[in-house]
């Protein structure tokens, strides 16, 4: 697959001297769902503003769909859709009028606009509210309308700057569903920024963690989690004193185990794929009359990734629970 966005050594220094984007490089492939994850002020929005031709970069090189940002801004504008962080629907106009206006911005023919508007109203579930003024919409409805305006011209590439910030969980889930649909069904490349780990984890096939204007690390959510470390299994034994060394001996020989430590419960095992290992451990220990009292396992979360690379939690109240294994529990 070809790259639809290429960014090399991108720097943006604001006129007050703030270095908002500090020498970042990354590529996004066509059809990809790519995410920028980072806390407020990390440089996510600034990067989007540069790529969407709103801000002029200080230095570096960037192309979007093969067009150079500096020389071919107007070609880029034709093929991309943008949803900014602020919800920008015109409250004085109805939902339908907002969409039609946007169609005119893209110089689409009137009959095509009409058709597309009906399609989009259906897609984002605003058919019944189409003739009402957007001022009276709920926050979630406005976001959905805003999203619809961003894709009126069937863009190849969609930029979303924190598309679900400030939304309730249901609205957020609805937006996620639309985005996955757009990416899968219509093959639109999506570049998204978010400060929600859960969102990045669920949607993005590949992501970059950005902090203080720099890319700390990038990869697929799973790759990133693997880099942080292996899964862990905590094993409690009925008679820990007596059986610990024997149990450790047995587990150590199993494939995939990377490390074994003593822990509060008794034994802590690090392994590559804990989920499939658990059954083996239980079976092996059971056959030697070592009695188990508990087994819990957990996987590293993006939260762990974030902490490892930036040294801080992203937003405590938004931190995501790791997907729990069959025995439940969490480190």
């Amino acid at each position, binding site marked *: 697959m070809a790259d639809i966005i290429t960014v090399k050594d991108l720097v943006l220094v604001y006129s007050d001297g703030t270095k908002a984007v500090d020498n970042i490089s990354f590529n996004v492939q066509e059809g990809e769902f790519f995410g920028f994850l980072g806390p407020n002020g990390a440089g996510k929005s600034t990067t989007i503003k540069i790529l*969407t*031709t*709103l801000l*002029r970069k200080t230095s570096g090189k960037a192309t979007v769909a093969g067009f150079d940002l500096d020389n071919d801004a*107007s070609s880029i*504008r*034709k093929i*991309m859709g*943008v949803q*900014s*962080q*602020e919800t*920008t629907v*015109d409250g*004085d*106009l109805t939902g339908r*009028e907002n969409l039609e*206006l*946007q169609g*005119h*911005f*893209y*110089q689409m023919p009137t009959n095509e606009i009409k058709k597309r508007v009906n399609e989009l109203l259906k897609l984002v579930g605003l058919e019944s509210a189409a003739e009402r*003024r957007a001022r009276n919409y709920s926050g979630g409805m406005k976001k959905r309308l805003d999203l619809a*305006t961003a894709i009126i011209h069937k863009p190849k590439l969609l930029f979303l700057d924190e598309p679900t910030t400030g939304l309730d969980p249901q609205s957020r889930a609805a937006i996620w569903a639309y985005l996955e649909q757009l990416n899968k069904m219509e093959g639109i490349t999506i570049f998204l920024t978010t400060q929600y780990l859960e969102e990045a984890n669920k949607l993005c096939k590949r992501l970059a963690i950005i902090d203080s204007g720099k890319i700390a690390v990038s990869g697929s959510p799973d790759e990133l989690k693997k880099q942080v470390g292996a899964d862990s299994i905590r094993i409690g034994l009925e008679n820990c004193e007596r059986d610990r060394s024997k149990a450790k001996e047995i587990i150590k020989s199993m494939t995939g185990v990377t490390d074994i430590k003593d822990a509060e419960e008794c034994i802590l095992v690090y392994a590559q794929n804990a989920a499939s290992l658990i059954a083996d451990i239980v079976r092996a220990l059971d056959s030697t009359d070592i009695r188990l009292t508990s087994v819990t396992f957990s996987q590293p979360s993006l939260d762990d990734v974030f902490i490892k690379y930036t040294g801080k939690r992203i937003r405590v109240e938004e931190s995501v629970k790791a997907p729990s294994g069959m025995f439940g529990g969490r480190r």
Partner: protein
Amino acid sequence: MFIRSLKKLIRNPILLFFSLFQPILFLALFTQLLSRLGSFPGILPDHVAYLEFAAAGILLQNAFGSALQSGNSIVADIDSGFLSKMLVTPMSRSAILLGRLSSDAFRVVIQTAIILGLAYALGAAENTPFYVTTGVVGILGIFFTLAFFGLAWSGISLALGMKTRSAETVFAIGGVITFPLLFLSPSLLPINFLPSWVQTVSMFNPVSYAVNASRAFMITGYDWGTILPAWGVIALVAVITLSATLYQFRKVVS
């Protein structure tokens, strides 16, 4: 863009009402205050009621008012992110500005028509007939003069709005500019009735030219010696203010 502004205006009739409120108040009350002026010989031109005389000044005042709101609306578009939303589309940059300006001009014309209509009605009620000497073509001339004038001043409020990004500042500075310019001109009183220093100042006041031109259309007829220089002065102001607007707009856009 033009259509959007108009739709917004129709959706918010209250906005139109408020911007018309002050001129109408002046038209209805201020003219009453000075309605006896006509009975002193030599102050107003012969056979001209004060209402008819002041109408031109009130039209100017109205054009000022709506021009100032133009700056507010661009501030609102910048704040809400709507301007950015337009800028990421391939629509031409000049269309954004031209749409705004043309809707401003259109709005001034509508308001001017309302005020003229009202003046006519008031004149009939007061038995001091109000009519435009030059007829329909003259009314078009008035529309043109005021729309042109409105554009020139929209330029100031747009430039201020984009520079300061604050609607309050636009209003504050706008108010400070508007009233001295109106009072230091023959907008509401005949020139020979004003103190001599005001007469001197008013010669350098672009508002004086615009008001005299409108008045010519209403009262004296096609006095090209007044109208053409007025258009020239307005054009000069427009070039200056719209260049400032363009300069600020370029800064906002890039």
